[in-house]
């Protein structure tokens, strides 16, 4: 069985495009949640979000391609290029039959789809762009990445709500472990800042209505929490075997030690308040990693900032880590840039890798009022220096989907 490592990072997020800008903003705890200006969202209960700025500046794509794809594919292509460059990989020199793409997405490309559906009802079927068919669906970015780099190996798009991209990374590792591929671009992308997508997120009842103060609206684990703010973006990681990475003298960020996923089976939106399912997933991931709870130095939490989500996540961590639970830094950096839904796990993996590299636990911002039921060390408001050799990342989807990834320094 191969050991699987991460050798390249590409990030497109409200906190910045590229790992340096992203990490600088995370380190200082800056919030990038603001009022939505892309369309009039003022009548939505929650009308704040993390939005990516400056795509025109960062893009390497032609106008001819851009008019055929949705924003979520665009962001995934920019993140893929950044990740490959970071990993010092030229796809022209790779075996494309042995290269794969594993991406996660929750809702598809609605910015493109909504415009075309409006035209369908106003102008009839001839008003719809022929690109609509290939632009909107969740696997569209996988297709675009494969065409752009002529990648032909086993690939997959995971649609599993907010757990999508962490699952994609977990499955990618499994495929590399079994030596079915040499190289994988793994991660996710999401573009939910559109009228219909925002409506769907609002009707789930999990979004913050702190519209008067967008930067402090998303407050995970705080007693006054009232849901999360959505965000758009993409995270792509380059995965390969440790052996291959060493052979080509690649920069190795981290080893993927373990992964597990399961379901609560309790409610269509809310997680199990007792956190039993998540605790089981954490235990399975640690077992897969052959790591004891004592070895985990940092936990990147899902931090969805709803009553059930925060309490169940806290309970799950306490169940697994027992007396040590309160000594482990647990934070939710996504409060700074928004919950990227299907892309959140990939971007959390990137922030965790940068946290390990810098031995700095990112803060949970907007933490003001402690909740007696959430009594862990959430690294409130300020990043903290702490040695991080092994870390755990949690992603959870609606309906009780749990995914857990364990990383370790090489």
């Amino acid at each position: 069985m191969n050991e699987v490592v991460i050798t390249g990072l590409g990030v497109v997020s409200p906190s910045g495009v590229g790992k340096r800008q992203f990490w600088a903003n995370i380190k200082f705890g800056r919030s990038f949640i603001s009022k939505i200006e892309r369309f009039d969202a003022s009548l939505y209960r929650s009308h704040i979000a993390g939005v990516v700025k400056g795509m025109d500046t960062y893009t390497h794509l032609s106008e001819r391609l851009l008019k055929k794809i949705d924003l979520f594919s665009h962001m995934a292509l920019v993140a893929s290029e950044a990740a490959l460059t970071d990993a010092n990989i030229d796809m022209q020199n790779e075996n494309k039959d042995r290269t794969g793409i594993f991406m996660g997405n929750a809702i598809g490309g609605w910015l493109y789809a909504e415009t075309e559906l409006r035209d369908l009802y106003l102008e009839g079927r001839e008003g719809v762009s022929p690109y609509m068919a290939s632009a909107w669906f969740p696997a569209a970015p996988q297709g675009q990445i494969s065409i752009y780099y002529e990648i032909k190996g086993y690939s997959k798009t995971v649609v599993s709500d907010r757990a999508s991209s962490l699952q994609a990374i977990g499955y990618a590792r499994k495929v590399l472990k079994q030596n079915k591929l040499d190289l994988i671009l793994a991660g996710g992308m999401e573009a939910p800042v559109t009228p219909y997508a925002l409506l769907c997120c609002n009707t789930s009842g999990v979004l913050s209505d702190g519209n008067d103060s967008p930067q402090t609206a998303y407050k995970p684990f705080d007693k006054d929490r009232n849901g999360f703010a959505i965000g758009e973006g993409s995270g792509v990681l380059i995965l390969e075997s440790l052996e291959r990475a060493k052979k080509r003298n690649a920069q190795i960020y981290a080893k993927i030690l373990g992964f597990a996923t399961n379901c609560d089976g309790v409610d269509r939106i809310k997680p199990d308040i007792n956190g039993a399912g998540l605790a089981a997933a954490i235990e399975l991931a640690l077992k897969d990693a052959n790591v004891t709870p004592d070895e985990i130095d940092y936990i990147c939490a899902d931090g969805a900032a709803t009553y059930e989500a925060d309490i169940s996540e806290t309970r799950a961590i306490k169940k697994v880590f027992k007396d040590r639970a309160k000594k482990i830094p647990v934070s939710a950096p996504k409060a700074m840039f928004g919950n990227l839904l299907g892309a959140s796990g990939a971007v959390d993996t990137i922030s965790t890798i940068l946290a390990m590299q810098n031995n700095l636990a990112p803060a949970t911002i907007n933490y003001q009022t402690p909740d007696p039921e959430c009594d862990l060390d959430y690294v409130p408001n300020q990043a903290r220096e702490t040695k991080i050799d092994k870390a755990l990342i949690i992603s959870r989807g609606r309906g009780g989907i749990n995914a857990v990834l364990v990383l370790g320094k090489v």
Partner: protein
Amino acid sequence: MSVAEEIRGIIINLLKLKPNEINLDSRLYEDVSMDSTEMVELAIALEKKFNVKLTAREIPRSATVSDLAKIIDSKKIV
């Protein structure tokens, strides 16, 4: 402006090409690398512009811009 020149302009606009990337002898598939969906988009644009009925399937794989003009001309006469 000839029909062929008009078609060339439509293709430049649809595919966001530079004018020097296409001439009247350019083959749509081989030289301009048009894919099947771009061909559908072009057929719809030509239908609207010239008020003819045209589907992407009627455009041969080897067609040039001038060939397309001939197809449009033949339809206009009918």
